[in-house]
């Protein structure tokens, strides 16, 4: 662990306020101009059980939840015990090697080689409020003191977080101050040298970033049925619906959600839906409808471990086969998989345009890891060029909704446009939209329409930006990853480079259609290692099917994300 970075973990049971405490710490750091990433480890339960929230911060790059643990705030005894125990694998996270802060009433834990800081958290809190969770604020104060953050920044965060609550807000500031001062008077700081910056950074969750990117991309309707981990985008948009002028609706089921999304886009309002694998499964039939009718839609698919209900609060990248295979027959689809919060914003805005331009479904694949964790971004560009794609003018003569073109893209009229009335059909149709299968099937027209639709993928591929890489130029070994594992893969590459391995990475965030440049980037490499957070290597299979690559697979499917050193070790085994 580097001296200019810190990892703080708050641990307790569901209902203990673990997440709120962690978020205050994260925001304090982001206001201090540090790069921050948080990690939320929780269970499918509303009260009890065990959960924790980790904050990693540094003046340098922060690309994953990181290895190591400097400060533990334990809200119960179990927390002290678990996170200091090197034998318990807390979802792959490292045990504490630094300071453990907890209430002095907690005792009887196994003593280990860490600095125990039992504090009168409750006593200090009760000076200001009888509210039980107030003791967390005291602990936060202590932790911030330990890291050398000035109290003003912390208090500004507390005031913003509890803002509306007036008195509660003040009490929390006082409680934090108690903890802050107590720690400074009685204990030593961590000795970390964090390079604070002068510019506050944006701290944003992946789901919020998706929502924000969509609005910037012209979103007018978001229709979705709640499902973890896609709900964070839904909640963000619902909270801002009036302000953003976005119509937000929770319908009776996901089938309705996608059909509504199709209807809205058909009628000219940019619309999007979102769910996790289970809800997406219910959208499969209508996905093909959008493909056949050539109606733009954007679907946000945030993965969690399956099969079925699986592990609802854990992470996995196991829905790629589903997304690629969804719906009968062949039709063009575009699959994007953002790497981080910034990418969530950018790719989602772009997805909104791509759907309109190519008049076909665009699926944004995220996962719990990315959708539910907060990250800093330096800046957010409010500008984005919205492109409504090819539209005919009112009254155009002999209007053909499905005009056969070289690009595969036809002019799309919107209900309300004069003189362009036509039928859009889920049955195979001709250029006018008239069905070719009722009285007499026309095999030639069928083929022409299939070809036209599928040509859109060629058009897209021609315009696709080159796939990004990391340290690949001189590399003997290439790692290929997709989506949210980009950051941790980079960190693993750094570790392996540090050990003298010539290794680099190909970072895929445009998953389908597969960019042929990936094949070229691989050529000459000694070994190609595909990294995936799933059992069967679904992306690996895609690469083999599309590019005929020979690869080896590094996979993890226990519900947790990769950790940098763990991933480095897993890759190292493959290149020895």
């Amino acid at each position: 662990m580097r001296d200019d970075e810190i990892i703080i973990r708050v641990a307790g049971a569901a209902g203990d306020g673990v997440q709120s405490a962690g978020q205050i710490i994260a925001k304090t750091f982001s206001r201090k101009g540090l790069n921050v990433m948080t990690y939320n480890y929780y269970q499918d339960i509303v009260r009890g059980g065990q959960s924790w929230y980790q904050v990693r911060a540094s003046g340098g790059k922060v690309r994953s939840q990181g290895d190591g643990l400097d400060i533990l705030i334990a809200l119960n005894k179990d927390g002290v015990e678990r996170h200091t125990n090197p034998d318990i694998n807390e979802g792959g996270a490292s045990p504490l090697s630094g300071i453990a802060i907890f209430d002095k009433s907690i005792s009887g834990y196994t003593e280990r080689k860490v600095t125990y800081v039992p504090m009168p958290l409750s006593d200090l809190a009760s000076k200001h409020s009888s509210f039980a969770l107030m003791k967390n604020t005291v602990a936060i104060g202590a932790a911030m003191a330990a890291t050398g953050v000035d109290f003003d920044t912390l208090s500004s965060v507390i005031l913003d977080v509890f803002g509306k609550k007036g008195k509660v807000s003040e009490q929390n500031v006082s409680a934090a101050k108690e903890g802050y001062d107590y720690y400074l008077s009685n204990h030593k700081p961590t000795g970390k040298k964090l390079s604070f910056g002068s510019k506050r950074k944006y701290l944003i969750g992946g789901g919020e970033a998706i929502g924000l990117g969509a609005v910037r991309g012209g979103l007018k309707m978001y229709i979705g049925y709640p499902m973890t981990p896609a709900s964070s985008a839904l909640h963000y948009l619902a909270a801002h619906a009036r302000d953003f002028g976005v119509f937000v609706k929770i319908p009776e089921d996901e089938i309705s959600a996608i059909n509504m999304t199709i209807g809205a886009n058909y009628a000219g309002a940019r619309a999007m839906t979102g769910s996790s694998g289970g809800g997406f499964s219910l959208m499969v039939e209508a996905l093909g409808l959008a493909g056949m009718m050539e109606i733009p839609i954007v679907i946000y698919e945030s993965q969690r471990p399956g099969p079925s209900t699986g592990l609802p609060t854990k992470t996995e990248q196991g829905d790629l086969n589903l997304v690629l295979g969804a719906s009968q027959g062949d039709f063009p689809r575009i699959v994007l998989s953002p790497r981080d919060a910034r990418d969530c914003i950018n790719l989602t805005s772009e997805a909104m345009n791509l759907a309109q331009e190519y008049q076909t479904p665009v699926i944004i694949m995220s996962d719990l890891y990315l959708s539910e964790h907060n990250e800093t971004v330096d800046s957010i560009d409010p500008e984005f060029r919205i492109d409504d794609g090819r539209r005919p003018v009112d009254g155009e003569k002999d209007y053909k909704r499905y005009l056969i073109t070289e690009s595969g893209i036809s002019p799309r009229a919107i209900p309300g446009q004069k003189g362009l009335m036509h039928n859009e059909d889920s049955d195979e149709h001709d250029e006018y939209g008239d069905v070719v299968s009722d009285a007499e099937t026309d095999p030639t027209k069928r083929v022409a329409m299939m070809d036209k639709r599928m040509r859109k993928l060629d058009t897209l591929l021609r315009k696709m930006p080159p796939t990004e890489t990391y340290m690949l130029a001189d590399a003997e070994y290439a790692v290929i990853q997709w989506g949210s594992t980009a950051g941790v893969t980079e960190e693993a590459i750094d570790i392996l480079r540090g050990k003298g391995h010539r290794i680099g990475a190909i970072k895929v965030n445009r998953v389908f259609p597969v960019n042929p440049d990936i094949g070229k980037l691989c050529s000459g490499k000694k070994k190609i290692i595909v990294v995936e957070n799933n059992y069967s290597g679904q992306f690996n299979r895609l690469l083999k099917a599309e590019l005929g690559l020979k690869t080896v697979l590094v996979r993890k499917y226990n519900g947790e994300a990769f950790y940098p050193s763990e991933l480095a070790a897993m890759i190292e085994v493959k290149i020895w």
Partner: protein
Amino acid sequence: MVTVNDYSGKIRPDWCPACGNFAQLSAIKNALAELKIEPENAVVVSGIGCSSNLPEFIRAYGFHGLHGRLLPVASAVKWANRKLTVIGYGGDGDGFFEGTQHFFHTAKRNVDLTYIVSDNQIFGLTTGQASPTSEIGFISKTTPDGNIEKPVNPMTFALSAGATFVARSFSGDPKHLQEVIKKGIQHKGFSFIDVFSPCVTFNKTNTYDYFRKRVYKYEAKDPSNFEEAYRAVQEWGDRIPIGIFYQVKSQSYEDLDPVTAEETPLAERPYRKLKPEDFEEFL
């Protein structure tokens, strides 16, 4: 001036001669023309079934989607552009089996659209299986020993769901049909119209004759009286009432939601430009 000819499609309907759907196609075209709705502002959304082929045969914006899924599509079309007149048209299998949940919730939401079901008490397009409105004892490919499941009563269903306009008509009475459809379109909110529409090819029980003998025109004393309506629609057997059973005024969903409520249709509003203040909460 809008005339019925403006609604004439170039494709000849492919229904069997004398199919009940023809009368409904005419009635819809006539009603739209009489109401002076321009074809470019009319959207007909359908499901899958013989009846659902209708959008192919009318010169308006047509959406021939998925079996059972016309109502979510139709609702969203209205939300996206509240200036449009939206008509949902489908079969009894489409609406009362595959689309049951959408029928219920769309009615409850009181989205301003007109939902017409061509109720032939059979699956027509798939060549004759019992449908959710097939009577007990009805013999079909899937019920060779006679149907044992009670038929749905679409009227009580719609009433319980909270539909604000509930009516029934018969393809054998084109004038009545057209009048009811016209009133349905004029109604602000969710209008449901169940139409007895004989399938001359597969349903040899519920024929034109069957209905001619039974239907009579019902006039509600007070169309806003729910109990009266609920009682009236339960009559079945030798006498079957047709007409508008229930109609009340109530705000439509798109009037209630502050985002759709604004006058300019959502689809026509300028895109919302982001400002740095929009991200401030993340600082």
